[in-house]
């Protein structure tokens, strides 16, 4: 196998390979034939959601007792890799649903919230979104101004708004992070499960995106939303809680980006072997061989990073800083691979019929969300120097 140059398969269990192969077959049959057109149309293919649920792709590393597949973290990563081999938008849907909505309900929710929400979210019957970013607070979410105020009877009134929210306009529930009771300090941040049909909730799709076009990205507005006392995630507290969710999602993204890179590499490798120019396949020219060798090398390095990180996560010893390194490296690597693949393809590389340019454009969002590349540089910088360069 060209894309398994280092026999990574040999380091996966039979079960992990079976999971990867099953997701890959699903993506080949269901996603690849429709995704180019969905992207051009700017449409998230939501008809795929029930199947993703039935196959067990959503929240797959959460326990079986809540209707999830109960897989290890390497298997979870492989699912993300294969979904993003299809499209970053499909993977984003699964990341948000699993790591950013189901995970906080699992980690910070009451038993009642878990039993009520997780099984139907695993099936894809209930769709979630995650609201952290605000128009004026992106890389610095601790500055958020969305506010929830507790009422005398224990219920809450929520005001504010969120920006760039994946799945925002199609979600049934939104996990919203808000400061509480007028306290501007980040330590007052709590998570709330907000039904999107609440009075005072509105969502509007972001128009004019040139990236992640097969994904819904929305702006949310909360106007005097009245939430019952049990809307709060009782075990959430401070900025640390949403950051824990981001660590989960970023871990999956480090695998996902690799899927996009592999798709680009394989596409342009096949093309290079067949495209004849100056009387021989372009793969026979040194410049293209160097290009392919660079792509292959970077993909293999990223695979080893993510696989090792997954084993650390399964052992329970991974750190958020290690996740930052993997997200930063792998996403940046994938943007480079996608761009080089597009260039190798020549003119056909600008068509939606080929994946490279779609992946290339998608990966620019992935480069920015879940902590921009720069923010991860600062996290790593702080980890190695002990000096905070954020502000």
């Amino acid at each position: 196998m060209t894309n398994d140059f280092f026999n990574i398969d040999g380091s996966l269990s039979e079960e992990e390979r079976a999971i990867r192969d099953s997701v890959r077959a699903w993506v080949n049959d269901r996603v690849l034939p429709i995704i180019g057109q969905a992207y051009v149309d700017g449409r998230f293919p939501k008809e795929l959601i029930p199947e993703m649920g039935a196959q067990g792709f959503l929240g797959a590393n959460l326990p079986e007792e809540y209707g999830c597949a109960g897989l290890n973290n390497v298997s979870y990563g492989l699912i993300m890799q294969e979904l993003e081999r299809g499209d970053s938008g499909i993977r984003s849907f699964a990341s948000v649903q699993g790591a950013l909505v189901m995970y906080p309900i699992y980690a910070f929710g009451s038993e009642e919230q878990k039993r009520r929400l997780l099984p139907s979210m695993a099936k894809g019957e209930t769709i979630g979104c995650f609201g952290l970013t605000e128009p004026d607070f992106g890389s610095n979410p601790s500055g958020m101004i969305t506010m929830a105020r507790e009422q005398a009877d224990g219920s809450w009134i929520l005001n504010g708004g969120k920006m760039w929210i994946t799945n925002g306009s199609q979600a049934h529930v939104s996990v919203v992070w808000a400061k509480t009771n007028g306290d501007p300090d980040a330590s007052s941040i709590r998570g709330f499960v907000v039904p999107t049909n609440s009075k005072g909730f509105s969502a509007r799709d972001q128009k004019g995106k040139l990236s992640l076009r097969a994904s819904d990205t929305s702006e949310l507005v909360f106007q005097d939303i009245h939430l019952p006392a049990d809307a709060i995630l009782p075990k959430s507290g401070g900025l640390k809680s949403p950051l824990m969710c981001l660590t989960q999602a970023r871990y999956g993204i480090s695998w996902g980006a690799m899927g996009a890179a592999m798709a680009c590499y394989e596409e342009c490798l096949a093309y290079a072997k067949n495209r004849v120019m100056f009387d021989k396949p372009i793969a026979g020219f040194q410049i293209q061989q160097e290009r392919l060798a660079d792509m292959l090398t970077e993909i293999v390095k990223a695979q080893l990073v993510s696989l090792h990180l997954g084993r650390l996560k399964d052992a329970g010893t991974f750190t958020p800083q290690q996740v930052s390194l993997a997200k930063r490296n792998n996403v940046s690597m994938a943007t480079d691979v996608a761009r080089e693949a597009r260039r190798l393809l020549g003119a056909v590389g600008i068509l939606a019929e080929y994946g490279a340019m779609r992946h290339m454009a998608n990966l620019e969002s992935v480069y920015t969300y879940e902590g921009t590349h720069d923010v991860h540089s600062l996290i790593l910088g702080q980890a190695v120097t002990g000096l905070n360069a954020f502000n």
Partner: protein
Amino acid sequence: MGGTIFLVNFFTMGAAPVKIAVCIKRVPEMDGAFKIAASGTAVDETGLKWDISDFDGYAVEAALQMTEKLGAGEVHVISLGPDVVQETLRKALSMGCARATHLKCDVVPFDPFAIASALAAELQGGGYDLVMFGKMSIDSANGAVGLMVADLLGMPMVHGCSKLDIAAGAGTARREIEGGGELVRFSLPAVVSIDEGIARPRYPSLKGIMAAKKKPMDVKPAQLGPVRLTVQKMDLPAARAAGRILGEGAAVVPELVRLLQQEAKVI
């Protein structure tokens, strides 16, 4: 009270659970390029990916759909070969089959009769209503094992079913034949082999993959029949000569016609 008992009896009599065996083969995926091994008589297996043979996968899916439709019954899967076939069997378990039997031997012989003998020995006395095969394996493409098993078991055989249905004691099947179709009826127990078009194999769900680990897998030595047929030599088709581009547009048509007439001699 009596009514309840009557109903229970009636139910179990009416829908006697069917027992189906599907024999599956582990084969290399066909989309890669093949090399011949140093022995000259087999394919070089390095770097190949393996899966259930296509037609066998259709058979597994068709069997599962029949038991699901009947609401009762079990599908067993059987495969013959070295230990790695257990992975292929587990894939069938992850799709929903109830139990697997691995008939163990170091190499899968080429002689279909040797394989059929081992399968028939296992199937004999297993109490199966239906034994299913793919129409042929996509690697050796003999299409013979199922027919031989039917003969060894003394059962009716329908080869190449594109539709299949079973009900109390009998089955019906459709076969595609040159220029039309053929509907056949047969008594159970029977052996059938499956053509494409019957059912697309489901993707194993992730829960199915986890559940497969806990399902029974019996391992028995394969009682192979005598091997009287071996491959002497394999060769690859001659490489196609590279194409030639004459140019673009109407101006090159006369030259194209001339070459097709005089050089390729096809028009």
